[in-house]
């Protein structure tokens, strides 16, 4: 006779560690667990409240600069180090883990440091800086030795330009870098003169950003309210996008080669598809003053922006409003922001000469978690997402304590926008010619041209 024995695998009832509690077999008979919707709603509400309770985004303020921080670069090959340049021409390299300056060049430039960027390849720690003194300098923490503290270390190399530089960015893979002044110059690191000049019009260019995926494409934004795309393969500009107000910064999406975000003077962040620039893909509106800098998260799904309204905002690229606002009592106008490459932190450099380190998700805590804890967090996240539209939960999730100035300004701005909209609607209503509504995504765009 064959005996069929009951069998249980030991994994079902043994614990992973001694401290773990005993596994309990669960009965998922629905009769035993009534009111699932109401219970999950309650859980979602609790999760939302807990999220807000644990939301402590500010981590550290790294001080050392004497003037405001106007340039910042994250190292694409190192999570720890960040380089900042300040208004008095000082360069500092920071270690984020130890939260201190690990290298500095007090008089790196005469005048403002307008841009810094790292030189590719994890082997060297070289980076470039440009200033209004028409110089582009190569530095290295390991190579350019510091004589004594407070003395500017020697540069590895120096390039002399014809105009005051306003921005710099390095090619992702080749030894090329681009600087912006009144024109875009492409430099070979081995040559003292630029190998190409890319010009279009005569206006000053604010910044230059190279695409990190489609590596030969770069974009600049200028004082003539234009955003210009260039291609290194054809050595020519591609197209010029003119907006109603000028753009302060550009960031390329690291996961979507053709997408870029722009920080505009009109308080908005716009995302564009470089192939169809006659309309923005998304308009992100929450700031109440000019947006000074914008940066994509390395996942390409989020954005961080710093604004003249003294706040940093975090955005979901597909949503119209920010998911969080970071501010600090002593934080002044934010001039540069960066999303760290592990997707967990945000950096902001502001007028008050401090570099601030924030959590990218305010209530998230780092560190290893047990499976159960992780499961609970994930469950809570899902519940929050699920019930995010229910009034009570939404209210909890959306509530932020915002500085008075910003709150007031946003209210005023809202009124203004509403009245403007009302006026437009009225005009449209009483206009016989049947004017069509201009979509918000096109309102700020004057046109795209190749002339």
């Amino acid at each position, binding site marked *: 006779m064959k005996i069929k024995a009951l069998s249980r695998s030991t994994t079902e009832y043994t614990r992973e560690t001694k401290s773990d509690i005993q596994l309990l077999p669960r009965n998922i008979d629905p009769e035993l*667990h009534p009111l699932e919707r109401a219970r999950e709603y309650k859980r979602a509400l609790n999760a939302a409240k807990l999220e807000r309770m644990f939301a402590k985004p500010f981590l550290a303020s790294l001080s050392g600069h004497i003037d405001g921080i106007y340039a910042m670069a994250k190292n694409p090959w190192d999570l720890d180090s960040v380089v900042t340049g300040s208004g008095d021409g000082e360069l500092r390299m920071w270690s984020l883990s130890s939260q201190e300056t690990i290298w500095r060049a007090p008089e790196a430039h005469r005048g403002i440091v307008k841009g810094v960027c790292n030189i590719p390849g994890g082997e060297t720690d070289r980076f470039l800086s440009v200033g209004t003194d028409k110089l582009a300098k190569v530095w290295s923490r390991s190579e350019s030795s510091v004589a004594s503290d407070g003395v500017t270390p020697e540069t590895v190399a120096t390039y002399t330009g014809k105009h005051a530089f306003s921005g710099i960015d390095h090619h992702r893979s080749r030894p090329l870098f681009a600087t912006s002044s009144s024109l875009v110059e492409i430099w070979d690191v081995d040559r003292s003169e630029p190998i190409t000049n890319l010009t279009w019009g005569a206006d000053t260019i604010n910044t230059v950003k190279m695409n990190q*995926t489609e590596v030969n494409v770069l974009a600049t934004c200028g004082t003539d309210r234009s955003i210009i795309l260039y291609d290194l393969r054809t050595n020519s500009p591609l197209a010029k996008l003119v907006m109603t107000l000028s753009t302060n910064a550009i960031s390329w999406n690291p996961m979507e080669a053709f997408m870029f975000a722009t920080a505009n003077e009109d308080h908005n962040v716009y995302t564009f598809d470089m192939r169809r620039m006659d309309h923005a893909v998304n308009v992100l509106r929450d700031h109440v003053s000019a947006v000074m800098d914008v940066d994509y998260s390395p996942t390409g799904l989020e954005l961080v922006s710093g604004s003249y309204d003294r706040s940093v905002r975090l955005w979901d690229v597909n949503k119209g409003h920010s998911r969080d606002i970071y501010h600090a009592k002593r934080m002044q106008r934010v001039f540069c922001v960066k999303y760290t490459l592990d997707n967990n932190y945000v950096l902001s450099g502001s007028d008050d000469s401090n570099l601030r380190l924030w959590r990218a998700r305010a209530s998230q805590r780092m560190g290893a978690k047990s499976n159960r804890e992780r499961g609970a967090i*994930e469950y809570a996240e899902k519940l929050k997402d699920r019930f995010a539209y229910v009034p009570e939960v939404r209210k909890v999730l959306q509530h932020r304590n915002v500085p008075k100035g910003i709150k007031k300004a946003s209210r005023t701005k809202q009124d203004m926008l509403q009245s403007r909209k009302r006026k437009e609607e009225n005009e449209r209503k009483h206009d016989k010619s049947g004017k069509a509504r201009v979509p918000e995504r096109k309102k700020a765009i004057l046109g795209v041209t190749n002339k």
Partner: protein
Amino acid sequence: MGGLRKTSTKMTTPRRGSSSSSSGRGRGSSSRGGRGGSHNRPTGKGEFTERPKATPKVDEDDNSYDVFEAEDHEDFGKRRRRHVERVDVRNYELDNIDSEDDEEIDSDDAFNDSDEERFASYKRLPGASSTKDVDSEDSEEEDEDEEDGEDLVDLSEMLDASESEEEAEGLSKAATLLSPSALGFDDLAVDGVDEEESDDQAFAGMGSDSDASVASDDDEEEEAERLSKLDGFVTSISARAPRRRFVTETGGGYAEDENAIGSGLVTKGVSLGINDLLGSLGGHADEAEGGEHQGLRQIRDLKNQVTKLDKAAKKAGAGVVAAPLAKRLQDQMDRQVAYEKSKKSVSEWQPAVDSNRAAEHLSFPMNQPDRQTLTTASLVSNLGAKTDLEAQIQSVLQESGMTDEQQRQYEELELKNLSPEEVRLRQRELRMMRELMFRSERKAKRMAKIKSKAYRRILKKDKDRAQEKAMERLKEEDPEMHAMLVEKMARSRAEERMSLRHKNTSKWAREMSKRSHGDEDTQQALRDQLEQHDALKRKVYDIGSGEELSDYEAGKDSDGESDSDADMSFAAVKSRALQKIAAEMDKNDAADDTPHKTLFGMKFMQNAMQRKEEAAQRDAQMLHDEFASLEADVDEDGVAISLKRPAAKKAKVEAKAPGRMSFGAAGAKKQKQADEDGDEPAKRVRLNEAGQVGQVASGGGHRVRLAEPVSVEAAEKKGRSGKSAEPAALNPWVSDDVSAHAGQRGGKLNELSKDSTKLDKLSARLRSKRKGGAAGGGAEESVLLDVNKTLSVDKPAADHSDDEPASDDDIRLEHKGRSAVVNPNAFSQRELVEQAFAEDNIVEAEFAAEKDAAMDDEAPKDLDVTLPGWGSWGGTGVAPASKRIIRKAPEGSGVLKQNRMDAKMGEVIINQKQAKSSNKYYASNLPFPFYTSKQYEETLQAPLGKEWNTAKSHSKGIKPRVLVKAGKIIDPLSIPSKKRQ
């Protein structure tokens, strides 16, 4: 400009056609490549190709030409225009140019004053040119010029007609011309003022040569035809020369005027390859009949050289560069083209981006290389000295010849020294040794593993015996000690049994078991405790003294006797029970005689004891009597099958409440009492299955509670059946009930027998159960079972084994005599019915009122907010203001009566009040990605929690969309096609 350039290519073709075969007008659609080949080949299509290569007679040719022209000229003109239009359209499709762009360059720009000057002579009507064309054959120069002019007239017309379109076309054309590869060397476009000088140089020389050749071969028609093209060109050059000079003189040169976009127009019409020039010469040379002279040979050489150069140039991909456009325009076009290319290039990312966007889960960093899994093979292959120490050891081993390889070699060498027999012997020896070792090892293992029951038993017995011996020795040597030990054992056992400390569930044990992992001492302690537990749980005779043992054994014997004697006769049992009871009674009597001294000696105590004893005596007597009167159905072996009690003893059951049927209270009590009283006999007397009867009687087995002690009869009395005496005056509300129809039911039940169907049996069981329930629960019934009547439960003798439900099948309920008697206090049927349907009409009216009230309640209500004395004058003689202030109900509040859902429904009230408290569970408006509320609701439908899902689906449900590995740099996306940029 570009637009004109495009049309100019159209212009060249007819002209070429006319020069090659002096009669045809090729279609502009002939391919460029075709033109590059030998001159003789017809290059056109359609009617042009059908024509002979070289017509022998000029006249015929002329005629045909004239006819063709006459017939087709108008058509051709139209056709060409159509063609141009078509081309325009196509170009538009290729590059869309914004209207703004078009606006920028207006026709004035494109066709400026200088151009107008230049083309002034061309501005003729097409009609006029056609009339000239008819007789144009005579003067070749003119003809060429005119043709040119004609085409240009067309062009200007076209320009006038659709300027903007041409601009666009021009742009696109220029754009296509930008790439050098688009320009064939053989095309050698001689179409720009820019190339003036070079053209002049080239064609000046050529022109003189060709002039000579024309002069020499004047008579030959064919050659004339062939040369006509060249001649035409030369003359055209000469015709244009003054104008060009004029242009240069006026300083309209390219370099000076960046915007002189029309400057390239002048010679646009002439797009002539060098092969065309040389080809005609060469061809002429070949076909010249015997007339080969120096010049021709030179020309042929030149031609060969040129073709060589041509080929080389083609191979290298180089061509003659088109005239550079104005820088601004050039840049513009460059950007346009470059933008298109960049768009195309960047669009290669689209699939990857799309898949990421659509992905259910994203895990960052992406494109991570697979982690290498370590295999033994890979480890072995990489095995070697890694550290310095290892390397040192390795080298030492190597030097001393101790590596495995060296050892093996050495052994092999050694073996070679021995004879084969010796080797075999040694090998056998080795094998033997190995075998032995293996066996002994296996045996040891087996021995270590044996732990059979017998082994354990023997071990245990040994141990016990040793202990016993020790105890005995102790008893002899030190009885006190022994007694103490025994007492201690007994005490500890008692304590253990009382406290249950031996259980493994005590706090100490739990604590220890937690700590026991890996701790030998603790484990030992736990084991000891368990052993102690076992030992203490062992029956007392195992450890008790000999006396106890004997006692127990006696009991056991008696027990065993009773057990074994399964078929002990009923009489014997009975007599023994009686004996015991008698003994008990005697004991009680005897106990009376014992003298009391202390407390018990006092009077009241003695009285109490007396009373107690008397009660006990009474009970015992009763029990005795009962037992004495107990009869049993005895089977042939003398074993009782069922007990029978005389019906004399009957308890009275009083009707406690009207409308209730009461069962079994007294009977149960009685039974209980009997159980208590006759505890010993009831236990002692084991009457095989007879015990079951008792159970039946106590109501446990069959859920039939009886109002009186029942007589339980053997199954022989099948025929008896109680007749229902009261069919009339039945209560229709209790007609289903068992008791009312007990007689009938009994009758029905009586019909059940061994051969009744299973269904019947089942239904009978169901009924009996229901009845049991009703009786136990005390249903509202006005009927009582007659106390005097008995309900007998019959069982077939064969089915007495135990109380399994199957035995219910054969229960037979019988009423003896009248089954029910109407209680005088119970409700009558009429009363019941009346009560049930009383005030039906009142209910309807009540409902209507209720509905009205509900409607009013939910209707929008105006609010009277008048405050007396406010807003009016007061004082004596002033009438109070009659104006009332009513605040209208806010819109959307409440439901109007006529709008109610239940407005037209008679018997329904639908509550349309909104439950405000539940509002918070609903989204106020539809969230963005959803189109219908149903879609949104669906997302909330299935719960996510652990309570409602299996572990797997739960973890699947809560998995976040984006997973990021902590502390890892997330590099930008990379795709294979973009690896090398």
